[in-house]
């Protein structure tokens, strides 16, 4: 503004205001120059390995739980040069691995060859982080035999699969089964339900005859995976590249909400979490039944509730009347990925295969193996099953092959909206049915924020 002529104070003020307006609008106009949204990368092209050197050192990142397994491999194969690093294993929503890979992509070096990670990590690792970068995870289906891939429990690799390739091998699965206290059930004279309708009817009976006893709890941060996933509710359903369907008004969602509301009302299902602060102390010995993952046996009943050995048993996942095929949920489970930047894919693949599929490692793993032949060995190992009142092999194996694949591994956690929107509502006394729209709205918001096109129909 060339207003050098002496202006009256008021005019000067007006001129200044005009200048501010012009400057602001210039900024706003400039805002159109480049997009403020984060770059989303195009679908990954074909995988091109770097020049290989079969004698080079491989770096393996593992969490502390899987560290002994990696060390055991090194001991058994001293000729393989390995650099073993412990990190948080992406537990509890950590984004350490993602942040590091972002940095390695920037500097063009430093990637580990093999990593233990959470299924959520595969959502970004299977895509390039920037247009110039290569996706971190190598498509392992090009590295291992087809029979190896096929031997993984049905659906357990779905979290690894993008654009027709498999980007990880699953370490363990957490198939949902129906846990029950056999001693109490026998004492009360109840039969174990096989359908959700029978489960609901048993709830009404327990409420009458043994008030205070529980058939489940929905207050944990992963309860939605035990119940709504098992009900085949399309809450987190990826229908295409970056297309998310979240339709909580679907009958598969409302039937579970109605059932749970009934059982919450007659107090046979708790709105508290099994893992909440004082649950074990106040109600741990009142749990007659729990629909939950395979690790509930050791980690919930044995460690948290301290239920004596020989009382707890597992049954097949529940079905719905009129549905021939049962479906069940999955609560957790880790994966192993091979880096696409590895100079020694041969050694990296070998260790990954050994970690995920070998009886030597998986037979005594802390959690249920995703690789079916290794799972057989795991079940045959008394250390894993002697705590239970009955043989859990049947239900574990059945459930492992019944995990519903319609609950996708999304770029955001399926726990946030459930924990911060639905659970406080339940605590305030609202019904699940009335909270479904709020839950859906929260998922839609989260989905859009990470770049999905979201449909609710």
């Amino acid at each position, binding site marked *: 503004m060339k207003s050098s002529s002496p202006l009256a104070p008021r005019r000067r003020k007006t001129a200044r205001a005009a200048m501010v307006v012009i400057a602001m609008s210039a900024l706003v106009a400039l805002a159109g120059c480049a997009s*403020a949204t*984060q770059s989303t990368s195009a679908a990954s092209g074909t995988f091109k390995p770097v020049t290989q050197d079969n004698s080079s050192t491989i770096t393996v990142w593992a969490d502390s739980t899987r560290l002994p397994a990696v060390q055991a491999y090194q001991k058994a194969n001293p000729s393989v040069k390995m650099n073993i690093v412990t990190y948080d294993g992406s537990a509890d929503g950590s984004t350490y691995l993602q942040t590091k890979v972002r940095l390695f992509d920037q500097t063009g070096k430093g990637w580990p060859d093999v990593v233990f990670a959470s299924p959520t990590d595969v959502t970004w690792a299977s895509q390039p982080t920037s247009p110039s970068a290569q996706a971190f995870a190598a498509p392992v289906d090009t590295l291992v035999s087809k029979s190896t891939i096929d031997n993984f429990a049905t659906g357990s690799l779905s979290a690894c699969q993008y654009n027709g390739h498999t980007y990880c091998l699953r370490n363990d699965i957490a198939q949902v089964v129906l846990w029950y206290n056999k001693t109490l059930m026998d004492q009360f004279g109840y039969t174990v339900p096989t359908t959700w309708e029978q489960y609901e009817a048993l709830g009404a009976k327990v409420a009458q005859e043994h008030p205070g006893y529980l058939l489940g709890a929905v207050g944990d941060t992963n309860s939605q995976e035990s119940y709504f996933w098992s009900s085949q509710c399309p809450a987190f359903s990826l229908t295409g590249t970056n297309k998310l369907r979240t339709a909580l008004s679907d009958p598969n969602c409302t039937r579970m909400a109605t059932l749970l509301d009934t059982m919450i009302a007659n107090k046979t299902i708790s709105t508290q979490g099994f893992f*909440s602060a*004082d649950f074990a102390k106040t109600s741990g010995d009142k749990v007659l039944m729990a629909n939950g993952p395979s690790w509930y046996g050791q980690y919930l009943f044995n460690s948290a509730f301290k239920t004596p050995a020989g009382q707890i048993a597992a049954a097949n996942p529940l079905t719905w009347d009129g549905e021939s095929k049962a479906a069940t949920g999955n609560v957790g489970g880790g994966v192993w990925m091979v880096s696409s930047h590895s100079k020694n894919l041969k050694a990296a693949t070998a260790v990954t295969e050994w970690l995920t599929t070998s009886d030597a490692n998986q037979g005594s793993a802390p959690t249920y193996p995703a690789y079916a032949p290794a799972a057989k060995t795991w079940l045959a190992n008394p250390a894993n099953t002697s705590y239970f009142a009955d043989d859990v092999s049947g239900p574990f194996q059945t459930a492992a092959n019944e995990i519903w694949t319609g609950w996708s591994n999304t770029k955001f956690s399926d*726990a946030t909206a459930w*924990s*911060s929107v639905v659970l*406080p509502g339940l605590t305030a006394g609202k019904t699940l049915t009335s909270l479904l729209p709020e839950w859906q709205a929260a998922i839609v918001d989260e989905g*859009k*924020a990470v770049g999905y096109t979201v449909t609710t129909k």
Partner: protein
Amino acid sequence: MTELKSGGRDTSLAATKSVRRRDSSRRRAGLAGYAFVSGYVVFLAAFGIFPTLYAFYLALTNDHGQFVGLGQFAKVIQDFRFAPAFANILIYLVMWLVVLVVLTVVVAVILRSRIKPGLSAVFRFLFYIPGALAGVASVLVWLFMLAPGLSPVGGLLNAMGFTQFAQVIAPGNLPVIFVLIAFWTGAGGWIVVMYGALNNIPDEILEAARMDGAGPWKSAWHIQIPMIRKWIAYMTILAFAAGTQLFVEPQRLQSASLGRLDPTWSPNQLAYVLAFQFGDFNGAAAVSIFLLLIGLVGAGILVTRSGLFKVDGE
């Protein structure tokens, strides 16, 4: 206060001369002053000004380093978590500042004028103790206090209708809980400061007020509180700035309650999630600039309205 101290401002030439002499001596001392502040200035530049400028740079560009104008600001405003986070912090700030100003001043006045000096010192010490606990530790204390099954005041919580921790931390109660934590840890220090400010008031003034028939409350309202107005403004500015940056309390409560809190309850948490979960450092920088602007505007209003930086005798 102003009138009292600047009584001889416009008198004789001699006085003016003496003022001038004082001015020039002050200027000479200035060189040493620069030396003394230089260390601080270096750190301020490195850890205060440079990061702020870097935040501005990030907020005006995208992840390719291209200039996007106000695009990042527009983007974060439209984010579904933006409005709730700022609404939460606004409710919290209003409650926190009112509680802080009213209670610390009242308590300080009572400790100064209505309680025997020895007892007053004991109370001031007691009030100050919680402030010595670091942020995270004080949150842990409150996690115990708020869990009905563990709390020493569990009976009181039960009487209020809370039987589970999850009920206590219902979304509607959160601002109150954070105000409780902040007051418990922060107010003690401010009570001591306010007490010190009240000590600065010459006894003659209070004596004169008493002679004129002012009771303790009247002299508190008309003499003491107006005379420590600047300290109150100072406290408000600092508490306002600290309050907008609320982070540790909701973050700890979020993990302790196994996710029952919105992970982006406060704007600072939103910035954290944007940066470290979604890798959106540019958006996070835009959120931080919003916080900076709010802090600056708030401080600006308080400074000009209270005459905080007006030096006596000018």
